[in-house]
């Protein structure tokens, strides 16, 4: 029972979860089906909510529980359901077709993870003890890989998912740097994420209706 309160044990759980989040992000880069993309996003968000809950437990900070619960509701349940419904409605069966092929994409994602670790080093202060120091490196990597995935995708829906995973990186950064933003801010951010998912979902649907494709590389009429 002792180790439930042991900070080092908490640190290990957070590190393990953060590693899982990173693995899922790279899996997102590697896979080829949009449905899988949505589910990996849900799984990743679930891990994030667990990290938040762990930190809330070990730091006795009840407001983080609320942030964790909201993440669970919005990013693990509502947004994936919304997108899966959208897919059914649009009858999408096609593959993702990235610009850069999968092996090279994974290599680039690995490189970006290294960059994330180097950047996170500059935040590390040896006198500061606390949970989630390793998580910061993961957070910055998520942010960078999210950027890369956005550039690397042709399909509108997968770009939105990449944008949301980039936001997941920010959530993790907030958790690991400052044990989360103030609750009111978390509320505002999650509300925006939910509305953004809906708005962009509708936009994707209309693009698909108009162009009979979600390939955003077709969107190049406006120039100069």
């Amino acid at each position, binding site marked *: 029972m002792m180790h439930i309160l042991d900070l080092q044990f908490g640190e290990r759980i957070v590190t393990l979860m953060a590693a899982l989040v990173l693995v899922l992000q790279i899996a997102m880069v590697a896979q080829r089906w949009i449905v899988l993309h949505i589910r990996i996003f849900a799984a990743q968000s679930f891990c994030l909510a667990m990290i938040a809950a762990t930190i809330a437990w070990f730091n006795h900070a009840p407001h983080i529980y609320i942030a964790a619960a909201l993440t669970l509701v919005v990013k693990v349940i509502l947004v994936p359901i919304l997108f899966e419904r959208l897919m059914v409605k649009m009858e999408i069966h096609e593959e993702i077709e990235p610009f850069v092929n999968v092996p090279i994409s994974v290599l680039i994602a690995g490189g970006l993870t290294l960059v994330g670790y180097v950047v996170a080093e500059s935040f590390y202060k040896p006198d500061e003890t606390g949970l989630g120091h390793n998580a910061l490196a993961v957070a910055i990597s998520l*942010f960078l890989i999210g950027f890369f995935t956005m550039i690397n995708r042709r399909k509108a829906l997968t770009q939105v998912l990449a944008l949301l995973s980039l936001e997941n990186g920010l959530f993790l950064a907030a958790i690991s740097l400052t044990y989360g*933003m103030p*609750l009111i801010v978390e509320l505002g951010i999650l509300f925006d994420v939910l509305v953004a998912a809906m708005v962009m979902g509708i936009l994707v649907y209309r693009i698909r209706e108009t162009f009979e494709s979600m390939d955003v590389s077709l969107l190049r009429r406006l120039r100069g």
Partner: protein
Amino acid sequence: MDRLLLIALLLIPIATAVASFVARRRAVMELANLAGFAAVFVVAIALGAQVLDFKTVSIANGFFYADALSALVILLTASVALICATYSIGYLRSDEQSGELGDDATGKEQLALLRMYYTLTPLFVFSMLFMAVANNLGVMWAAMEATTLASIFLVTFYGKVNSLEAAWKYAMIGGVGLSMALFGTLVAYYAGHNLTGSAAISGLNWSVLAQHAAQLDKTSMRLAFVLILMGYGTKAGLVPMHTWKPDAYSQAPVPTAALLSTAMMNCALYGLIRFYILTSRCVGAQYPSRLLLLFGLLSMGIAIPFVLVQTHYRRLLAYSTIDHAGIMTTALGIGGILGSFGLMLHMTFHTLAKTLLFLGAGNIYQHFRTNQFADIKGGVLRAMPLTGVIFLLAMLAIVGVPPFGLFQSEFIILRAAFEGGHLFAGVLFVLFGVGVFVGLLLHVIGMVLGPRGDAPVAPPRPWRNGSMLALAIVLVVIGFWVPAPVFELIRNAAQVVSGQ
């Protein structure tokens, strides 16, 4: 009294949106918008007066907070919103008649579109006002994101292929930009969280951070400022994050484009200014100043070739807005009391002149039904005299011809540059200014003056011309005489920016 003002400022647009959403007739929606924005305008004036008396107004333990800087941004937003609401009535009625909103004989399709417009516009204005009164930097970010979300479907209003493309770019580029801004906000919170305790809501309050700015973690604040500059710079349309702007402005309905290019740009710059104040108090003015000068001058310079080769007049206006975003960012970079004063003055004048230009462009588009200079071939002045005169006046104002206000503000910024020792920046400022001046005037004079051609004389349009005439009078008068309270507000806002 002061409590009521801030609450009213936020509640009125929401009430307007609800009223328009439930309304069943076009006239009710128009009336709701007109009355709502008139009320917001009155409240904004009252708030300005209050801020002049008390310096700051805050309620709910400082959750909402307004000083002269916020009051000025609010006043400008409210003015543009009121003018655009008046103009929209005539503009959308004309669109409905000419079948731009669909050809449904029962009129249901058109009514649904109008309902969307009249509901989303107040929400869009609400999020801008909310941004200007939010003290908490995280809440401010959420409000900035809300401005994007509320305006995406205004950009796709006409439902054309091009408007979908424009909205998609706007959503994606804006989304990436704002995620950087969120990262910046987070890092700023980290820079101060040891000071204020991490669980406290006030830990992200601007007024609290500004008091303790000197004790914030310096490395973190530097990083935060870069991220914020990229993030809010995207919304303000600084090069190289500007690419969504010409698309969104040329596809959105004209009143929305006017709001996007004046009120929303002001809000984005407002966010940037708040972080500039924190950063310059924390690490000294030199660091943020260099970055701002770089991005500001880059935006001014890159805008020139696009202005020169432009064939589409609404895209031309967008590049002019990018140029002015650059001018204001440069002014912020020059800093000091004089630079800040030039910045605030410029923001005020630019807001009036650019709104007028967009409304004029709307009139021209609805009459000639083309976006190309080449297809108009001159003669706007003869086909539609009032619009032609006002468009030309506003264009002279925007390029900074005396006696219009933008001449004064640009001159002040230039003086601040030379007095502050930014010689190189000052010289570039003049060069780029001349480039844009030539480009804009060549295009517009060709379009407005000249023989009429075969275009018919335009019918009278009371709503559109009435609102334009009112704004044009304000623009001309304010070039000679800025009313004392407004001047005082601008001066106080400059003091907030420069911290003197």
